[in-house]
């Protein structure tokens, strides 16, 4: 079951994503003011949501890890943090493309952009600490992830009030219902892919831990025999 689950999820993603691409490009009307480039919205927005979700998952898992030293939570935190980087890269690449085409400016220091960018940096530093930190730094990294997750609303709000002192109107207009309807399959596909990858990565991390234990067990064996 545990092995099958990510495969099923990835399979669902593999079916849903082409469908959503077809739907987005062929069955959804072209947005009047932004034109074809608006199609990127159907992938950009779900990716951003997924990124935020993963950041929160990582923060919560890190909180559990630091309290109970559960290795399942630790594996989840690592997997989620790495996928935050992947999803974040998607968001940070698609965002400026869209922005450049519609606002004429790739980076406008909008609250959401800055939040995403900083969040990505925080999780990049999490992954760096996990990789290069000495023994015992996993707790430090966990605290980092918790702070990262808590920072999300704070940064968002901070940049928002920062911008209000110098307003900059870049509000994305409200969308007609059929465009929203096309968003859901894309979200579903991407979410299935993400969860599949997350699951597989957690399993990999836990397998690594189990392998370490097995290794130690083998070394112990002669004594017990």
């Amino acid at each position: 079951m545990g092995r099958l689950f990510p495969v099923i999820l990835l399979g669902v993603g593999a079916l849903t994503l082409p469908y959503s691409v077809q739907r987005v490009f062929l069955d959804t009307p072209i947005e009047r003011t932004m034109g074809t480039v608006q199609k990127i919205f159907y992938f950009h927005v779900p990716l951003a949501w997924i990124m935020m979700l993963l950041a929160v998952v990582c923060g919560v898992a890190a909180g559990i890890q630091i309290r109970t030293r559960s290795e399942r939570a630790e594996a989840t935190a690592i997997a989620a943090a790495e996928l935050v980087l992947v999803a974040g890269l998607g968001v940070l690449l698609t965002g400026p493309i869209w922005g450049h085409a519609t606002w004429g400016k790739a980076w406008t220091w909008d609250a959401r952009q800055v939040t995403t960018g900083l969040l990505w940096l925080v999780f990049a530093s999490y992954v760096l600490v996990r990789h290069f930190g000495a023994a015992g730094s996993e707790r430090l990294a966990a605290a980092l992830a918790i702070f990262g997750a808590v920072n999300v609303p704070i940064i968002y709000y901070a940049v928002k009030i920062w911008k209000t002192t110098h307003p900059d109107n870049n509000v994305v207009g409200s969308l007609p219902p059929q465009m929203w309807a096309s968003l859901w399959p894309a979200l579903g596909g991407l979410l299935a892919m993400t969860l599949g990858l997350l699951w597989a990565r957690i399993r990999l991390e836990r397998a690594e831990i189990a392998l370490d234990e097995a290794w130690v067990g083998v070394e112990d064996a002669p004594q017990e025999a």
Partner: protein
Amino acid sequence: MPAVTPLQLRAIGKRFGRLAVLRNVDLTVASGEIVGLIGANGSGKTTLLSIAMGLLPMSDGERWLGGRQVDDISIEQRAAMAFVTHTTQLYARLTARENMELWLSLRQAADASVGEIEPVLRRLGLGDAIDRTVGTFSRGMMQRLCLARALAGRPELLLLDEPFTSLDPPGRKRLAEVLREEADRGLAVLLSSHDYDAIISVTDRVVLLSGGRLVGEVVRADERGAEGFRDAVLALGRGSTREAAHA
């Protein structure tokens, strides 16, 4: 004298990823007993002491202090323990008196015991250096100051990691005497060392740690006299005793 056992480690295991530093270590230190821990570099001596002191979380096993299983060592319990390591752990910019003052005032509600500093330092031969900056001390003096600091808190359990390193022969003798005096008053001592002569002179029991396992033990009372104990410990150190072979 308390009837409870100050320190009992049961089936302690410690791993850093794939590296098993300690495996299934059982060790008890009774009141008034001085136990020596020997083993090659990397055999897990420092890790074991750190776990006993609560500075490292263990991967497996139980730690019992004063007859009770303890996961998180409380402040009251830490007040009854002391740890002297081979790093000096002193503030080099402060004087011996200031270092001691900080320690004693941290552990007590009032600065009641500050008056006890001088006698303790004098006992360890630091009477002339009380108001000198620790940075000007020799390693041996620092080590004695560390021990003075540890004893000033009147602990029930004293852990020492390589206490004999960088002490001159008279210093070693003095340390051994002080430890024996304290043990006779009920202190439980666990010390690690490479120095067989020092270990033989002071301990009641010696255990050998190898590859993270306890592989042998020599008890002074079981041997015939000081010479017998000495030979048994040296044999244990060479890893060729009956116990080691058995394990």
